[in-house]
């Protein structure tokens, strides 16, 4: 059953392993953790291809290989090339699965892998199987990502499957990130894998017009992961996994696999620009610090410069999109020496462009901040008021209105707006900020 397979995951380094008495065991655990993240998706991808798109069987094979490493490395020592070792074991087991299962007979005949008896592991990794970037393995991983993010799966299933299969998180880690029970995550994954098999969801990267549409879905999953992590990384729940690192890794992987897609680079830049400023987002008491009051010396300026550079290069392809534009807005903020010395006119123009791609009320709300700086608080307030019917239950509408009202000297109304915002958010860092304002 899928459930037992999921529980068979080898623990990862960040799960607080008991220190091993034997240094060799500690070394094995470190090597496994280091090899794991990159390798698990790569392995799952290539094994899935060998098994003709059988997701569930492929994951089982990879888990077996990792378990074998977990058991053998402490005793036998870590191989010189841990990743290649894992690959050899996983492929061998995949071929065993093909041999065992009659349904795979035809496929076995068609695979390029030798069907003869497996040679001893002691002989080391198979040569020639470690493809560099751009090889078949990279295509396999891309297929894996597109299959996990297939629109025929519910969004939450896409997210869980991507985290499990591509990012290599355990079911316990995914459960912790979304504050749901591990049993619920296991069930979600099991259902998703069943649907992939039963509904005939192909293991393939779409082409032509379909690619653009499907890529939008894939990027949405990565962005959702990032947002989930970004909004909850307040530090008040240290047991909760920070998904922003996973999202950055995934976006970076996607950018390596699809170097010609400027929106992928735009998303990478967006995530890196946000993360470069993460340290200044909260004060010592865990309260959210608004951008305007952040200590900009705490930002990682080298990272900001690198992300901006990436964004500029993506822009040279002249195919703007919502992620590049959002990243450009964040870059304007990140490069400004202070709130006052920010290029608000440029930011307003970028928001106008963003609205053409993403005509949402939330984007219009964010735009009012720039509008306030360029045209004054009165104009911004009246624009925010037009959004009230759409965003009345959204705390940031009221918090933003409160800012404009305060700037206009209408303190009683500002207070009421802040109270309204407080009643609508459960995020502890945001609540602390609003309570401080109301105190």
């Amino acid at each position: 059953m899928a459930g037992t397979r999921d529980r068979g995951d080898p623990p990862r380094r960040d799960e607080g392993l008991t220190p091993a008495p034997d240094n060799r065991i500690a070394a094995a655990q470190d090597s496994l953790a280091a090899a794991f993240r990159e390798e698990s998706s790569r392995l799952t991808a290539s094994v899935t291809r060998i098994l003709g798109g059988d997701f569930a069987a492929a994951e089982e094979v990879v888990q077996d290989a990792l378990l074998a490493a977990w058991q053998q490395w402490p005793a036998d020592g870590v191989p010189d090339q841990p990743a290649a070792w894992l690959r050899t074991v996983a492929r061998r087991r995949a071929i065993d699965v093909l041999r065992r299962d009659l349904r795979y007979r035809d496929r076995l005949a068609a695979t390029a892998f030798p069907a003869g008896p497996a040679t001893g592991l002691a002989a080391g990794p198979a040569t020639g199987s470690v493809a560099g970037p751009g090889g078949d393995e990279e295509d396999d991983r891309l297929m894996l990502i597109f299959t996990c993010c297939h629109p025929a799966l519910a969004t939450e299933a896409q997210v869980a499957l991507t985290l499990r299969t591509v990012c290599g998180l355990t079911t316990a880690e995914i459960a912790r990130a979304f504050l749901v029970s591990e049993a619920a995550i296991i069930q979600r994954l099991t259902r998703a894998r069943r649907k992939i098999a039963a509904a005939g969801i192909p293991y393939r990267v779409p082409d032509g017009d379909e690619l653009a549409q499907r890529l939008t879905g894939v990027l949405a999953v990565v962005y959702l992961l990032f947002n989930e992590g970004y909004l909850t990384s307040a530090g008040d729940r240290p047991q909760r996994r920070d998904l922003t690192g996973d999202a950055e890794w995934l976006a970076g992987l996607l950018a390596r696999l699809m170097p010609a897609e400027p929106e992928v680079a735009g998303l990478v830049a967006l995530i890196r620009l946000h993360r470069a400023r993460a340290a200044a987002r909260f004060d010592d008491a865990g309260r959210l610090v608004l951008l305007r009051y952040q200590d900009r010396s705490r930002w990682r300026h080298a990272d900001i410069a690198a992300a901006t550079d990436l964004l500029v290069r993506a822009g040279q392809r002249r195919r703007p999109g919502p992620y590049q534009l959002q990243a450009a807005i964040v870059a304007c903020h990140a490069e400004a020496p202070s709130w006052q010395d920010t290029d608000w006119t440029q930011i307003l123009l970028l928001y106008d462009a963003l609205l053409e791609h993403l005509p949402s009320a939330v984007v219009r709300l964010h735009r009012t901040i720039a509008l306030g700086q360029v045209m004054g608080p009165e104009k911004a307030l009246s624009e925010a008021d037009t959004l009230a019917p759409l965003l009345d239950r959204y705390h940031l509408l009221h918090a933003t209105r409160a800012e404009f009202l305060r700037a206009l000297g209408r303190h009683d109304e500002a207070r009421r707006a802040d109270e309204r915002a407080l009643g609508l958010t459960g995020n502890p860092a945001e609540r602390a900020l609003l309570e401080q304002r109301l105190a």
Partner: protein
Amino acid sequence: MKYVLLFCGDADDAAAFAALTPDELRARYAEVGAWFAEHRARIGGSNQLQGPETATSVRFGPDGPPVVTDGPYLEGKEAIGGYAEVDVADLDEALRMARTWPGRGTVEIRPVATRG
């Protein structure tokens, strides 16, 4: 893989269909005909169904004989207007067909159960 495409619609879809002018209706039927012609090689059985007001349901309870009632199984505003059995490579190909369906409404794609 075999799938059945279920052509569904709700009250709004039915109203929009009823509001078509004779010319628009002819054009719509021509589009549907062209769609079937284009995918002929992949389509097995297919039929348009008469409206849900013509449906009769035979319902089996926990005991006793089945009860015959006037009306469709699906209660409420949604109804199945027709179906087509298709034989295609995978879900993506079925989705490509469904996306180009000219009849509007909603197309539900259901894989056909196989043994083994």
